[in-house]
Structure formats: structure tokens, C-alpha cells
């Protein structure tokens, strides 16, 4: 009897230990981006994509690392859309042993994180539209979506179909790399399509754009393009443009954020005529992502289409982690990632791209969209297929 009790106790103890080990085994992955300030929507969309992809893996039992089933835990870092914020974030995540980072978002962040992450041997993604978003000398950096060099020409052509009156445009963006790298490329696309383009840059952190708007309206543009201005800034710019009597179309050939722009500017009646680059060509399958998010994470998704656009990168990273069986060896995860076809259950099929522009084929390229609002009514989002 005593032996049986001892054996039973030992069995319970063993089972409890195994369960505890399974519970204790966590695999940490980082998520990074601006999670406060005017660009917060983009950073939260990045973190949301990472959390959703991790939750999907966890729902199937987690990832097997050294023979143990581990739960993936996402550690978020607010890099504040700055180079130093992203560099500090890479070190902060490295101090927790995190080698895989979904993020950061913007060009200053991408520039700041690259050398630090390379030193820490961390795999990073970025959604920057910088001219150097990818570089062959940083093989552990991946790119979530192409920059304006790839899509701005198609975007301008589509916008001109809806707003043929545009013969001149004034582009307004922050005066750092997150603004200049995008607005200057957008300006070339406008010029190539016969539209006279001027560029106007402002100090990031500007809250009142009235003087800048006075300056750019002095050139009598037919349209104003807010390029990659953070959505919060772009909303104020739209509001103040309309108050200054500007009646022409307003464009946005930069990052996503139409919902935030609508909220800050005062709605469709204020926005009136608007065209924007949408990182994803919205379908019902993509809208389904929000339902999956609510079901798995029990909260409302933040970030709109930016979350959907980031999700394939996060999902593919999780798949690569599962295939590599590690979160500590970034080079091994990167090797598995490169082997994966570019496809996503909600986004469909895409391409690996980047060789032509950056000299390294580590960019995801899915179909993208061009959204149009005319006379305060949404006309729809046109789908443009990816080509290499």
C-alpha cells in the first residue's frame, strides 16, 4: 500500500513537473514601432500583427523548441518613430534574449535599428519606405512591403483617372528620412506623369500647420499630398487646408491611416476628395482578420489595414520559427523564412521582391490598393497586382 501511494505521488509529481515545464517554456519574440504620438496607429498595428500570429501558433499547441512545446510571447517596445528609439529598443529586447523582432515601422527607425540589430544578431522586419529599407550588407533585415519606388507610378496614374484636373501638386511631409525619402520619390512619379510637383517639409512634432499651409497654398496647387506624414499630422493638415479655403483633392502616397485622418480632420465632408495608397487591396477575406483577432485575443484590433498588411510577415516569421525550432538563432530562422513561399491565408499569394531596388530579395510584395473618396463618398479601393 505504502509503495502504491509513493508511486502515485511520484507519478503526480512527474505529471505536475511536466505540466509546469510546458507552462514555463515561453519563447519570446519582439514587436516594435511607434506606440504613442501621431504615428501610434502604425506601431500598434505592428504589435497587433505579431500578437495575432503568435496567438495562432499558440492555439495549435505552440512551437517545439529542444523537444518542449513552448508558448510564443510577444514583448512590445515603443520606438517612438525615432532612430534612437529603435536602436535602444533593439538593445532592450536583446537584454531579454529576444532575437526575432516584428518591426519597426518607419524610415528613421529602420535606419537606427539596422546596425544595432546586426551587432545583436537579431532578425528584424521593417515597413519603412526609405530608399535603404533593405541593404545587402544586413541579411537579417526583411521588408514588409515595397516602398513608393514600386507603386507610386501606378498610384498617380489611378488618381489622375479620378481627378484629371490635377496639373500641379504640393507634397508635405516631415523633414527627416521618414518624410524626405517618400515625398521625393512621390514627386518624381507625379512629374513623370506630367504633374508639376513641389515639396514642402516640416519639423516632426509640429502641431499647428497653418503657416506651412499658407506657404504651400501660395504655389496654387491643384492637389496637396500628405505623403508619409503621420496620420495624426495628416488629419490636422487636411482640417487646416479646408479652413484655409483649399477645395482641391488631397492625396496620400505614403503610409496607411485613412481612418485616423478622417477622425482628426472631421469626417468625410471635410475630406471631400481624397486618394490614398492602401498597403493591401481590401477583400472580405482580409476583413475576416479582425474577427480572428477578436476571437483569439479578446480585444478590438487597432491599426486598420496596416494590421492586415503586417500580418503576413508576422505569420511567415512564426512559421519559420516553427520550422527552425528556435527563437534564439536568428540566422537559422532567416534561412527558413527565405525558403517559404510568399502566401497568406487572408492576403493570398505574393512575391519575394527587392533584388532590383535593394540588391537583396527579402521584400514581401502582395497586391496593393488605391482608395478614392469623391465628393465625400468612398468610391472604393482598386486592386493592383504585384509584378517583378
Amino acid at each position, binding site marked *: 500500500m505504502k509503495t502504491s501511494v509513493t508511486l502515485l505521488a511520484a507519478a503526480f509529481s512527474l505529471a505536475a513537473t511536466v505540466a509546469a515545464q510546458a507552462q514555463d517554456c515561453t519563447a519570446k519574440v519582439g514587436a516594435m514601432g511607434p506606440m504613442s504620438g501621431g504615428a501610434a496607429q502604425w506601431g500598434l498595428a505592428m504589435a497587433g500583427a505579431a500578437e495575432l500570429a503568435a496567438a495562432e501558433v499558440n492555439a495549435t499547441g505552440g512551437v517545439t523548441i529542444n523537444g518542449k512545446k513552448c508558448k510564443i510571447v510577444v514583448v512590445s517596445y515603443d520606438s517612438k518613430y525615432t532612430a534612437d528609439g529603435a536602436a535602444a529598443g533593439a538593445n532592450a529586447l536583446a537584454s531579454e534574449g529576444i532575437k526575432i523582432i516584428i518591426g519597426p515601422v518607419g524610415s528613421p527607425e529602420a535606419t537606427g535599428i539596422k546596425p544595432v540589430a546586426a551587432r545583436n544578431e537579431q532578425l528584424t522586419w521593417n515597413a519603412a519606405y526609405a530608399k535603404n529599407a533593405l541593404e545587402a550588407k544586413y541579411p537579417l533585415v526583411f521588408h514588409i512591403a515595397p516602398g513608393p519606388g514600386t507603386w507610386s507610378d501606378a498610384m498617380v496614374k489611378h488618381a489622375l483617372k479620378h481627378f484629371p484636373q490635377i496639373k500641379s501638386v504640393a507634397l508635405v511631409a516631415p523633414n527627416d528620412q521618414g518624410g524626405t525619402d517618400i515625398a521625393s520619390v512621390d514627386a518624381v512619379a507625379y512629374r513623370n506623369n506630367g504633374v508639376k510637383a513641389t515639396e514642402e517639409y516640416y519639423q516632426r512634432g509640429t502641431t*499647428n500647420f*497653418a503657416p506651412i499651409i499658407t506657404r504651400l497654398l501660395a504655389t496654387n496647387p491643384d492637389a496637396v499630398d500628405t505623403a508619409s506624414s503621420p496620420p495624426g499630422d495628416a488629419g490636422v493638415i487636411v482640417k487646416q487646408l479646408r479652413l484655409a479655403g483649399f477645395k482641391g483633392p488631397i492625396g496620400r502616397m505614403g503610409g496607411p491611416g485613412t481612418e485616423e485622418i478622417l477622425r482628426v480632420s472631421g469626417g468625410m465632408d471635410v475630406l471631400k476628395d481624397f486618394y490614398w495608397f492602401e498597403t493591401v487591396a481590401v477583400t472580405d477575406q482580409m476583413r475576416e482578420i479582425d474577427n480572428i483577432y477578436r476571437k483569439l485575443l479578446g480585444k478590438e484590433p487597432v491599426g486598420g489595414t496596416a494590421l492586415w498588411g503586417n500580418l503576413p510577415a508576422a505569420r511567415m516569421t512564426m512559421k519559420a520559427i516553427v520550422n527552425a525550432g528556435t527563437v534564439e538563432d536568428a540566422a537559422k530562422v532567416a534561412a527558413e523564412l527565405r525558403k517559404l513561399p510568399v502566401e497568406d491565408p487572408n492576403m493570398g499569394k505574393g512575391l519575394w521582391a527587392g533584388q532590383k531596388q535593394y540588391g537583396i530579395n527579402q521584400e514581401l510584395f502582395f497586391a496593393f490598393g488605391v482608395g478614392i473618396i469623391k465628393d465625400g463618398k468612398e468610391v472604393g479601393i482598386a486592386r493592383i497586382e504585384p509584378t517583378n
Partner: protein
Amino acid sequence: MEQFLQAAVIGISLGAQYALLALGFTLIFGILGVVNFAHGGFYMIGGYVAYSCVGLLGLPYPLAVLIAVAATAALGWVFELFLLERLIDDHLATLMLTLGLYLIVSNGLLRVFGPLSMEFSFPVSGSIQFGPIYVPRENLIVLGICLSAILALWLVLFRTDLGRALRALADDRQVAMAQGMRPKLLFPAAFALATGLAGLTGALVTPILALSPGVGDPVLATSFLTVILGGLGSLGGAALAAFIVGIVEAYSSVYFGGSIGALVLFTLVLLLLVFRPTGLLGREIRGA
């Protein structure tokens, strides 16, 4: 010419907003000797209280503004009385306390309201057109309220016993105390007056621009710049400097662009401080 006039309108409008902020900031320094790093936090609270009253409780906007002023003044009074007062003569400690309060406020608002901008618009919209010049109606209303508030503050400080007592404390605390002035009553009142002004500005300006956690950062920078230009502790200097900053910002941004405009402003302040370290109307030594 159109640009010149439009820049003047923008500059005066900006100047009035900056004056409200800077007067509160310099009032606290002049009377308490405290550099209030939480000033931007009270601006944000003013905005969020007004937003909550209008957006969540359905109150009319003018009432929401009054509630925002009362709430920020009350919060300032409590903060001064229970925290700042204990360390009022330790400049480093008060600096850290106010900085800490700002971090608590901005992170608290982030937790409660989330990081995205609120849907908060001024109840009056549209512009009045004078030939080629557009003046947004909301800016005119805010300008009127700001100028009225500045006048009211002047009357309080220069035409009431409370104002005389506060100015006496600012001039020479020891002598004022010997005359029967009681800092333990007057310091919280001065702090509340200043934070109420910040709250008023937040409630008025955030629906015109944007309301999100973090909008207090540039407020602190502008207030600091303005009071240094005007002379730390000088009320007249702060008001004068606020309009100079607003007008220089408007003209430099209109004529040189958003990047160089900011540079012009800071260069001007730097030059002024080289030739007049006490600012426009500042004194060499604080009496308090």
C-alpha cells in the same frame, strides 16, 4: 501681400495661445521658484476633460471648457499642497516631481484613452473671408477667449489683494511673510491659477488641432522657450515674448518653410540670450 497678412493673422492667433501657456508657466516660476515640467500635462488634462464632458457625457462645449479649467486648477492645487509644498525650496526635487507628474499624466492618459487621436472638433467651424485672407471662426473665438483670459489674469494680479499678495511673494518671500502673507495658502492658489490656464488652453486648442497623449510635449517646449525669451518669472515678458514667438514662427515658416522656420526661431532666442541673458523683461536675480 496676401501671404504677409495671412502670416500676421496666424502669428497673432498662435501668440495668444502661447501667451496663456507661458503666463501660467512663468507665474509658477515667478512666485514659487518652480520650473513646472508638468505644464504640458495640465494642457492635455484640460483637453481630455473637455473631450470627456462633450463626447462621453454630452455636455455643451462651453460648460466642458469651464469644467476642464476647474478640474486642472483643482488638480494643480492638490498637487502643490500635498507634494510640491513639502519640497518647495529644493529646486532639483521640484523639477523631478513635476517631471514625474508629467510622465504619470501622459502614460495615464495613454492607458485610459489609448494612443490614437480623439474625435474632438470645435463646435463652430468654417472661415470668414476678408478678400484673399481666410480666418477660421474657431481661431477668432479662441483668440477672443485667450485675450479675455489674459486681461482677467492681469486684473487678478494687479487689481486684487490676492494678486498683490502673490506679487509680493514673488518679489521677496521673506519680507512678504513678515508682512503676514501665508505661502501655504497662496502657493497652492498660484499653482492652481497657472494650471487652470494650461487646462483652459488645452480645452480650447485641442479640438482645433488634435488630442492624443503626447500633445503636451511641444507645449512644454514652447512654454519654456517663450518664458526664457521673455525673462523667467516676468509676466509682461512672457506675454510679449509669446506674441513675438507666434509671429516669428508664422513669418519664418511662411517665408522659409517648416524646417528653416523652426531654426530661425531658436537662432533668435539664442542670439537674444547671448546679448541679454535675463530675457526681454527679466530681472538678474529672483527676489524669492
